[in-house]
């Protein structure tokens, strides 16, 4: 059959990789020693195009959500900035594919819905402008609150006063998962504990302290 003969002489079209996007340093991160293992669907070119079919798109958004959550957990990224995202998260340089900024926003909006965690929370920007940074909750606020409180309990510091600085970067927390967390996020976590009646925050900015009950 003529059609079959011509099919077998076809070779797949070559990729035309565009130059890799500029590598901006990601906002808040500490380097993790083993490299992140990207799941196999990150080498599937259509993954970087927002699918028009809604059923397919729903599945695609779920895959992106899983990827972003595990990437941020691996690199201990607490915040994502749309203006300077990690170079290898939303783009695949060898393939020459990247998720467009509008689509990145769509993915993050999907993750910000309460039905999906929420795994992401937008940080309010200046009045009138849409947010362009967001917290990534690879652990939820409640989980962070539990972790901090459990550490305070285990180290017998209930009842003593700690500074926010100590909680973030003191020697005693050198192995903790929340070490070097953004201060604003740590304050949100402490806020959860305050609401539960397990902690009290006092003092102003530089010299604020926390007491746990």
């Amino acid at each position, binding site marked *: 059959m003529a*059609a079959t003969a*011509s*099919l077998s002489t*076809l070779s*797949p*079209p070559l*990729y*035309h990789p565009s130059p890799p996007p500029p590598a901006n340093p990601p906002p808040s991160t500490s380097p993790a020693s083993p490299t992140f293992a990207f*799941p*196999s*669907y990150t080498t*599937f*070119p*259509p*993954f*970087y*195009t927002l*699918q*028009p*079919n809604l*059923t*397919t798109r*729903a*599945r*695609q958004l779920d895959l992106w959500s899983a990827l972003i959550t595990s990437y941020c957990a691996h690199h201990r990224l607490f915040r994502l900035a749309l203006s300077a995202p990690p170079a290898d998260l939303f783009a695949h340089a060898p393939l*020459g*594919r*990247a998720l467009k900024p509008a689509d990145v926003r769509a993915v993050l909006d999907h993750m910000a819905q309460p039905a999906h965690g929420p795994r992401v929370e937008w940080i309010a920007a200046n009045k009138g402008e849409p947010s362009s940074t967001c917290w990534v909750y690879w652990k939820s606020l409640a989980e962070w609150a539990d972790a901090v409180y459990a550490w305070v309990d*285990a*180290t*017998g*510091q209930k009842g003593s006063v700690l500074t926010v600085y100590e909680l973030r970067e003191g020697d005693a927390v050198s192995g903790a998962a929340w070490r070097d967390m953004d201060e604003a996020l740590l304050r949100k976590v402490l806020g959860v504990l305050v609401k539960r009646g397990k902690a009290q925050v006092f003092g102003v900015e530089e010299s604020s302290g926390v007491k746990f009950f």
Partner: protein
Amino acid sequence: MSSTRRGVGLNAFSNAAISSEQYARHGQQLRSNHAEALANQLSVFQAALHNFSLTHAKDIRSNPNFRAEFARMCNAIGVDPLAGSNVKDIRGAGGGAGGVWAKMLGSSVNDFYFELAVRVVEVCRETRGENGGMIAVSDVQKRVAKGRSGLVGGGMDATEDDLLRAIESLQPLGGMFKVQVLGGCKFIRSVPKELNPDQAKVLEVIQILGHVTVSMLQANLDWERARAITVIDDLVADSLVWIDSQAEEPEFWSPGSMHEGG
């Protein structure tokens, strides 16, 4: 300790630091010991439950009350209740001569195929959003062998022949599952919509080449542009292909290769 060693002044600070550090370490050790012991107990229990289900498979099958309670307990713990008949030697005796042996040897062999069929249906349902209801038999085989995520003892080791036989056994339920051959590869179709010849042809081309563009279809199948576009639109609407719009011309890919290597 603090009553006999009345450290005053600077000594009091270092004593307090030392003792709080010791308490912290001790507390952490207690916690990790407890956690380890609990994890050990849980895995021993899971294994015992799995063995129980294998040895008492007959009872589980015959008594519905027992079965319901057993399934409830399994789901709570994380053991797969359908693992009961996944025993190779039962199947080995009857696998060779097909249906006749299955009838003669009775329930156990049939049950294996019915349970395999349940797995196949589950896999198709899970992946339908991704691949529009067309999944390669080899893909199903991999997923069934892996078992359900998060449950112990669920993986079923099945050959392609076993899978095809299991799908056949689903026929009395209305024939929702059909095997279709595209480009030399066998697919299981779990959606009622039939592929028209054009759509089947395009899917075949994608199987061979990995992806297509409208121009490729025009050039190689000698189709008018409108015809190619119509077929592609239909395939996208049925979630059978994914679009890559960042190539020179929009490319259409089969989702089968998405999870390869994972």
